């Protein structure tokens, strides 16, 4: 097995049927699970353990579209390890600055920033929707004509997505206790 797509007998595509994946997963589990190898020699048991853990890891990597894209990027040689969300995407600079101010105020006990935070939450949630729409389009593009260029674009969008997701998390955490 070279990669998780191959393990499932699937082409390297970003859109795939989750139901089909599930059925393939069950079929392969019946074949590879350590339970099936209890009466076999030690070496075969060890191999079953390796294969079935790879199968479970593979399913986790491919089940959800975002994780699937991350996995495929890694497979195609993109370094996903240090994809931290420290660098603010330039188009969000102003908004993030104001948001941080509002978060500070909330943290220091000033509840007057609440409406602003709630508005920010809405804005960012809207952005997430847009991003997921963009990803849909890019995924389809890649599946039709795979190439490094479109993967580079996907990577950029995924970074932005991660960044906004973290922001949303912070806003949620600040707003939630009062709810």
């Amino acid at each position, binding site marked *: 097995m070279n990669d998780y797509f191959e393990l499932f007998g699937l082409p390297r595509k970003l859109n795939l049927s989750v139901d089909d994946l599930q059925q393939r997963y069950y079929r392969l*589990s019946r074949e590879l699970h350590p339970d099936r190898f*209890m009466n076999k020699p030690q070496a075969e048991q060890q191999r079953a353990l390796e294969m079935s*853990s790879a199968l479970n890891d593979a399913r*986790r990597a491919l089940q959800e579209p975002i994780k699937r894209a991350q996995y495929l990027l890694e497979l195609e040689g993109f370094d996903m390890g240090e994809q931290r969300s420290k660098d603010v995407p330039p188009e969000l600079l102003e908004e993030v600055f104001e948001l941080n101010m509002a978060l500070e105020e909330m943290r220091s006990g000033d509840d007057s920033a609440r409406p602003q935070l709630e508005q920010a939450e809405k804005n960012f949630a809207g952005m997430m929707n847009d991003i997921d729409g963009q990803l849909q389009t890019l995924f389809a593009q890649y599946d039709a004509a795979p190439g490094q260029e479109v993967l580079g674009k996907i990577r950029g969008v995924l970074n932005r997505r991660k960044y906004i997701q973290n922001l949303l998390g912070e806003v949620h955490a600040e707003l939630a206790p009062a709810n």
Partner: protein
Amino acid sequence: MEIDFGVPVHIVGIDLGTTNSLVAFMDLTGPRIIPGADGDKLVPSVVSVQRSGDVVVGNPARELLLTQPARTVYSAKRLMGRGLADVQEELKLFPFHIAPGSESVIQLKLGERTFTPPEISAFVLRQLKQNAEGYFGAEVPKAVITVPAYFNDAQRQATKDAGRIAGLEVLRLVNEPTAASLAYGLDKRKNGIVAVYDLGGGTFDISILKLQDGIFEVLATNGDTHLGGDDIDNLLLKIALEDVASEWGADLSRDNEGVQRLRRAVIHAKERLSFVPQTSIELDYRGKTYQRELNRELFDKLITPIVDRTLGPCRDCIKDAGVKIDQIDEVVMVGGSTRIPLVLTAVENLFRVVPHTELNPDEVVALGAAVQAGILSGAVEDKLLLDVTPLSLGIETMGGVVSKLIHRNSTIPASATETFTTGVDGQRNVLIHVVQGERELVKDCRSLARFDLKDIDPLPAGMARIDVRFLIDANGILNVTARDERTGKEHSVDVKPSYGLTDEQVETMIRDSIEKADQDFNERQVREARVEADTILAAVEKARRHDAYFELSDDERAAIDRSMNELLLVYHSDQLGLIRQKIEQLNQATLKLAENMMNTAVRGALKGSKI
């Protein structure tokens, strides 16, 4: 040792419970519980060590809890895989006698000797093994043992150690709720989503499974390894002790026997209240009596906080499983505490379905373990269990922060690989601290073990690259391997478990006990052979006065005499094979005699019929 290739090796399923334990096996019709010599299916998980060194397990030990509390222990499962600091609450509520030197592994004092919790559990397992061996008339070397789904790595490892100490090859640890779902055979009915609510003596588990064509896939699990019927008993006991103190003007809480008798009285009342609306807690002790009426209304009010503690994990589990409550088709009730009407109502209200209670909640886990044993032996081919790890696995990084490698509710086996390097020039060792839990900081998680990567080639800082693979196997137990990325060489990993026994300690305990177990088994076989010898010797002795004996030739009579003498010669030896051989020889020598007697009897009968 002789191996009979004609007989398949029996693999049993064992429910090693906090309060009771059971052993079951798969026969042609389905899973069946094997009763003990006393006919009881439940073996109380109580162990008593006598002054003579004899170990008493089960019902007789439960009686000794009253008369010899300092030599007897119950609910030891609560201590499995735990450190002294973890069990301070336990120590307030249970009469555990902790011996000095319990820092890394708890040592329990029973009379003159000390034992670790896995050794105590091993006594219970050995009893179950013996019960099964008595039932099959053959050695039972392999078992599937169940554990609470929410058990962490150390608790699982401790259970596996207990099996090994008892002389059992533990083929698999299965989560209790998952086992129960196998026993219910719900897959026969339809595909769907099933919740298993398991409230036992000391632990609570909730698991949500997806069933599809014989595949039992656990979607999520949650629980509390310190919540169960024991907590209800302790609550009632506290109230009763206060009553007694005010009525008798005597503090019974320091009187071990008195406490145990009162504990039994409250348990009795609790159990009765599942069937009648009103009962009383009654104690006759040293000429004094105590009686307190208890109705279900008050009982429900008292235990509501305990029952409520199970509902949070249920909601979290539903959320983690990614299902809505109304998607859950069936709910299965497991564990003795689910007999309590309030528990049933609470579960029904939460899930909005009538829970399954058709199978005995005390037996269903053991039955499921037997089904899993059948899956492993190949006898059951259509079912497959896909379980998950209940807790996230991570490693300590800079600043005491946890970096999660395998998330909770990941299907097992599961693995993750992390690359480590050195921080200073020429560094030869890297220490990896593995933790389990959901919190961000190491101090809030459970320390599992420290792994020391040794003998790294001395290189400038950051140049070494060691790939460390963390693999959680199908038992939910962590395995760590390390490989040098540069040389491809496998690295030695020195494991220091944070809580629990080292491999060497387990090996020593196994050596001590296997000798004893083998000896026990052999002794039992020899005793059985002697009983058989007694029977045949008596029969032959009697036959020698029979007419048929005198119809034999001199040679034939001599052969019988010789065989009898030879059997008598080996009778008192411990040579099982020899005794069996001589029994067989005597059997052969008396074949003709038996035939003659048969003919005489037939002739007699024919004569008789003519009169």
